[in-house]
């Protein structure tokens, strides 16, 4: 039997169109105090935020590069060649028609407005570093829900931002969190008042457009007691020849009994560095879910974390990655157990092909005060050809009384028996491979709202169909 070579999966980047650059303000490349002060001045920020940025800049400059992970790729980043701030148009538009046409076209091609019109309660589309479009369902506004881009959030709710900004991920957390803290722009501020259940997902869409543009969005979601919210963030970026850097910081705070679900689908161009810090704090009986899908990029390092800090808190992380030619998906999850009767699960699925490398890197840490806790970790990896690589680097540190920990991982190729079963039913071998690959990602696909899966289906299906069709 001839061997299937799914060479073409993800070989072409479908969203590689780009607009001519047309910016009101573009900072000089490189990073120094002046650039940071300029960003803060352009945004007319309060003094405390400027100080926060400058302090973070000092931390960024003094911290060494991480000495773990894919250091070879990391050390190829040239921080002095990156543009740290771009502002595409003068002000944020209120209706779709006010958005400049060329930006609208970009979103049209990605299918955002349809999705927004039909299914989404609110939308903050981040084009480069400022929000250009923003809307929020009226009924939610009446209930006191805040859904703004972070810059507007800082202007309109300075006290709220000041109280919580940087409390989950401080600038000293790691080098890239420090970088983000110094030059952040855009991102979302979400506030759900006590007891409010937001039944329709909130969505923000990020894109990087300019060459060598850094994108440093900053998102803070605060769910008050007993509230619930589902937030969706998706990214596609056009292809550029020189490398781009994306380094976001996402902070979630789930107050007692609150439920936050944060869904990400990322499909960066194959030259983007995607180095993201995501962390949630779950208070008593709160429930936080990360659903994290990673396609594309050159190097992704992303380990969404849940800190279970209150009795009965729960954390669930579902991480999926597809690593293609020249890509390293270094993804995973972290669960910190800081309180008794807490529990969590981590599920990781990865596919490596065309010499791509997918790594699961995870940490489960149970502190002494966290007795009667349970955690389950499951990692599955599929290798589609001989050149590809899959790694699993889980760490478990168990220091709590009556803790149950389970970890399981497997790495395999597509099963001969599965292929035989399907082909014996008259399905062609290439269709069979596609079916198996789709089935492998099924657990991720089904976690997304059906309506929203238009975008995801486009991303995953197109990649997979190209492979075997």
């Amino acid at each position, binding site marked *: 039997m001839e061997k299937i070579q799914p060479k073409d999966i993800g070989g072409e980047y479908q969203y590689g169109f780009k607009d001519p650059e047309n910016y009101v303000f573009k900072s000089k490349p490189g990073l120094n105090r002046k650039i940071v002060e300029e960003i803060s001045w352009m945004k007319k920020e309060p003094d405390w935020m400027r100080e926060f940025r400058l302090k973070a800049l000092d931390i960024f400059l003094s911290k060494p590069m991480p000495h773990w992970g894919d250091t070879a790729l990391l050390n190829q980043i040239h921080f002095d060649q990156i543009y740290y701030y771009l502002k595409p148009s003068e002000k944020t538009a209120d209706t779709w028609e006010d958005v400049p046409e060329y930006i609208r076209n970009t979103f049209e091609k990605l299918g955002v407005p349809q999705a927004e019109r039909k299914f989404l309660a609110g939308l903050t589309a981040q084009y480069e570093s400022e929000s250009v479009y923003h809307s929020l369902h009226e009924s939610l506004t009446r209930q006191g829900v805040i859904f703004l881009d972070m810059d507007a959030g800082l202007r309109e709710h300075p006290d709220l931002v000041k109280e919580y900004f940087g409390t989950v991920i401080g600038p000293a957390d790691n080098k890239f969190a420090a970088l983000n803290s110094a030059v952040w722009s855009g991102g979302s501020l979400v506030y759900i008042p006590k007891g409010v259940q937001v039944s329709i997902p909130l969505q923000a869409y990020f894109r990087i457009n300019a060459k060598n543009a850094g994108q440093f969005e900053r998102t803070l979601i605060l769910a008050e007691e007993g509230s619930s919210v589902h937030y969706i963030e998706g990214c596609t970026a056009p292809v550029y020849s020189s490398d781009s850097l994306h380094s976001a910081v996402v902070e979630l705070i789930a107050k007692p009994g609150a439920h936050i679900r944060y869904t990400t689908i990322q499909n960066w161009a194959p030259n983007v560095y995607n180095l993201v810090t995501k962390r949630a704090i779950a208070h008593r009986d709160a429930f936080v879910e990360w659903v994290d899908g990673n396609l594309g990029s050159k190097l992704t390092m992303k380990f969404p974390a849940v800190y279970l800090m209150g009795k009965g808190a729960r954390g669930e992380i579902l991480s999926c990655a597809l690593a293609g030619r020249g890509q390293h998906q270094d993804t995973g999850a972290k669960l910190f157990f800081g309180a008794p009767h807490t529990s969590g699960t981590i599920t990781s699925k990865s596919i490596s092909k065309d010499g791509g490398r997918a790594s699961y890197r995870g940490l489960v840490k149970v502190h002494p005060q966290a007795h009667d806790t349970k955690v389950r970790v499951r990692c599955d990896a599929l290798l589609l050809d*001989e050149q590809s690589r899959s790694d699993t680097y889980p760490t478990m540190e168990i220091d709590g009384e009556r803790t149950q*920990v389970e*970890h399981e991982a497997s790495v395999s190729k597509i099963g001969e028996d599965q292929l035989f079963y399907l082909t014996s039913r008259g399905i062609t071998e290439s269709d069979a491979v596609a079916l198996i690959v789709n089935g492998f990602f099924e657990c991720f696909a089904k976690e997304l709202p059906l309506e929203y899966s238009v975008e995801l289906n486009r991303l995953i299906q197109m990649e997979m169909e190209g492979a075997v069709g």
Partner: protein
Amino acid sequence: MTPTDIEPDWLLEIRRAAREKLLQTPIPSRTEEEWRRTDPALWDCSSSFPKTLPIPKTFQNGAASAPTELHSILNELDRENPGALLIQWDQKAVYLRLDSELKRRGVEFGSLQGESGQTPFLRPILQAQLEESTRRPVFTFCALAHCAFWSGGTYLRVPKGVQLPKPIRILYLLSDATPALFPKTLLLLEPESYACVIEEYRSLGPCASQARVLAQTQILLQEAARLDFSNIQRWQGKVLHFWQQTARLEKEARLEATHLALGSATSKALMQSTLSQPGAQSNLKALTFGTDARHLDYSTEQNHLAPQTSSDLVFKSVLKERARSIYRGLIRIEPQARGSSAYQADHNLLLSPQARADSTPILEILTEDVQCKHGATAGPVDPEQAFYLQSRGLPPEEAERLLVMGFFESVLSSLPNDFLREQLGGMIENDISRRRQGK
């Protein structure tokens, strides 16, 4: 024996070269992943190193005459009727016996010290050890220290096609007076041979020892050789134990290695199996029992370099009081090792709230045609099991003994022969009852 007098020049050269390198090798930083949880400075033996080479005779102290303990140990081992037996007391071999039948069939067995000049096969192996000691930088300082200062030690060569009917026993004894010990075991099995070897580290005397131990076991299995190997660590007192087991397996060779740890204050161990040719098979098992504040830190490596190789690993730890277990295991499958399979499991039973277990099972898979799985668990005694035992009126110590033996049972029952099953099971039972009497 007066070993230093006999040690050949080429061996002294190896020692000198290792010592030169050692002087230029800093102790690794605590930020290295391998040493994040255990302080490498614990094995900084520089204060106990002899200042000159060759090693002066005073450092090679050993038994002038066998004390009564030694007699009882000899009696005990003789009852087992091993095919060969070597007992080393501190740095010196004090007892050596090899069945005349085995000697006749060409089996070579003896103390590395003194005889290394007469045993030509040792020279390339010892030279290669020096060259390979820098392969893993974070362990280089231990490997070099061992290379420069090992004393005593045991070698075994089983010629082609020879199947040893009875087990070989190697016993390293440590008295309280000795500040540092560097045991070394070399096992070479030529094609299609078979042996069962038990290597044991045991304390002698009232057990107030605070010795630093740097131990090394090297296993070379040639084509289709089979070895059932067991390493048993029963240091009493506050011994700091570093142990490195390296195994290289050629075509169709099979290793069944079992490690049992019942002693020491702090242990750091590195167990490596390199499957260098097609069809090689390595099975590693370890049972560790942590009590008091014992600190057990293990790293394992299953390196698949050739197609159709397979490896399996099971680690089981029982932890009491404030004991801590650290497991870090790597399965690496190189691109050319197609059609290989590898498994790895780490299970921890935590019998006290203060006990702690860290587990990091790592997979690095560079080809697609593989079957790889690993699993890790940690947890307390199943409350239903505990309740069942209580409801039958068992005293708590007896219930605990049953639970511990039950937890280890799956590994004990999978050991390659009855002799090992009885030996290892018996040692665990002894340890539990001795501990119970002590309290």
